[in-house]
Structure formats: C-alpha cells, structure tokens
C-alpha cells in the first residue's frame, strides 16, 4: 500500500470512530440514569398505592 499520508488517514478513521464511541458512552450513561430514575419513581408509586390499604 502507498504509505503517503498514512498518519492522517489513521487520524481520520480514529476521529470517526471516536465520535461514535463518545456518543455511545453518553447514551449508556443516560440509559443508566433513566433506569435508576424509573426505579425510584416506580418505588414512590408503589409506596403511595400501598399506603391507603395499610391504613
């Protein structure tokens, strides 16, 4: 293979996948946060529904 400009080609490929990777990481973090929030809200909801019966 022609070796001219090989480093910058490498940078280009690296940058392309880095952007996608960073996006995936932010997606994963947001997923985790949302899941936790959903658990919390569901817990609150169940507590509230259970409360009148206990009384």
């Amino acid at each position, binding site marked *: 293979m*022609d070796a*001219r*400009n090989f480093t910058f080609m490498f*940078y*280009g490929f690296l940058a*392309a996948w880095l952007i996608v990777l960073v996006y995936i990481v932010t997606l994963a973090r*947001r*997923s985790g946060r*949302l899941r936790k929030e959903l658990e919390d809200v569901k817990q609150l909801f169940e507590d509230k529904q259970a409360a009148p019966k206990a009384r």
Partner: protein
Amino acid sequence: MSIQTKPLNSSDAAVPSGPATSANSVVVDRLIYAFAGLAAILLAYNLYQIFMVLGDELQQGAIYRIIFFHVPAALTAFIGFFVAMVLSVVYLSTNNLKWDSLAAAINEVSLVFACVNIVTGSIWARIIWGIWWTWDYRLTSMLVCILIFFGYLLLRQSIDEPTQRARLSAALSIFGCVDIVIVWKSIEWFRTQHPGPVLSIRTGGGSMDPTMEAAIYRNLIPLLLIAISLVILRARQESTAREIDSLRRRLM
C-alpha cells in the same frame, strides 16, 4: 382539542404494562445486538477490502480511503434527517408520541454522523488542500445542517411539556430539512472548492473507479445498521422518559 386528552390516555396505559414492556425490551435488546453484530461483520469485511484489495488513488496516497467513511456518513445523516422529517409529519397528523420519540432519536443519531462527516472531511482537507476548513459551499451547508439540528436538540431540552415539545420540534424538523434542500441546491450554482459530485447517481458514471464507488455503497450498509441500532437505543430511552413522566403525573 382532542390532542390534549391524548397524554392522559397514554399515561394511563403506561403503568400496568410492566411485564409486557420488559418482555418487549428483551426482543428490542436482541434486535440491537443483531444489527450491531451484522454491522461489525460487514465492517470487518469492508475494512479488509478497503485496505488490502482496493488499489491506491494515484495522487492522494493512503488518505483517500477516508472517503469510504466520509461519504457514507453524510448519506446516513441525510437519510436520517429526511426520515425524521417524514416521521415528524406523521406525528403531526396522528399525535402519537411514539413517532415524536423516534424522530428525535433519528435526528440525534444523524447529527452524530454529520459530525463524523465534517471531522473526517476536515482531516482529509488538511492534507489535500493544506487547510482544515474553507468556506466552500458544501462544507458550509453541512455546518448549517449541524447547527439547525443542534438547535433542534436545544429546543427539545428547553420544553418540558411532552406534547408541546413534540409539536414544536416536529415543526422545526420539517423546516430544517426543507432548508437543507434549498441550501444544498445552491451549491451547484456557486463556485466550489470541494470535489464535484463523483457518485454515478449524480454524474451518470465515469468519474470514479467503479470498484471504489461500490466500496462506498458497501460501507453505507454497516453505517446505516449502526445508526439504526443507536436509534433503537435512543428511542427506548425516550419511551422510558415518557413512562417516568406519566408516573410522576399520576403521583401528583
């Protein structure tokens, strides 16, 4: 006015569907893995082709290979923006928030691919043109595109009420997509530094080696698959957020 009753209905439906959604999400999980796995296999094959089989471009050396990601990334982004526009129209005519979530997810993922396009292009330009950036019309239109859809995400962030957010961002999605077409059409009228159209759908063939052009299209498939799996992930987050929102409302 019937629209205002919609969120209440959907929030009623959202709560009892606990076990059903988890079964659903297993299927969706498998779908994401399937798409991503298929993308990985295709990508490995394409990378082998790009590096080992395809010859070198005469003048540019190794760096011309960036085009195999640069062009498919742009195509993925544009396909995404267009599909999101169609889904926005569907949302406005059905008022089903499902379409809004999907449109939002697609626009966000398309924005990522638009960034991939512009960054790879910039790195290529540093070598071939000697500059990182030029106000060539095609570069400018991609930047305009990124700014418009960044504005779309900003708009979504600044509205809390789901149906209002959905209607306004659908309108922006339609305006933005139509605007891009107008911006894009003006390229052909303006002198330009960017290499002219090379794909044979634009030129009628002849300006690019067919094996190289085929490699561009072949690489579009894995990128689209990656985009689709990211969209599914993102859309699922939106529906989780909706579920949280409706639970919160019922708590109040």
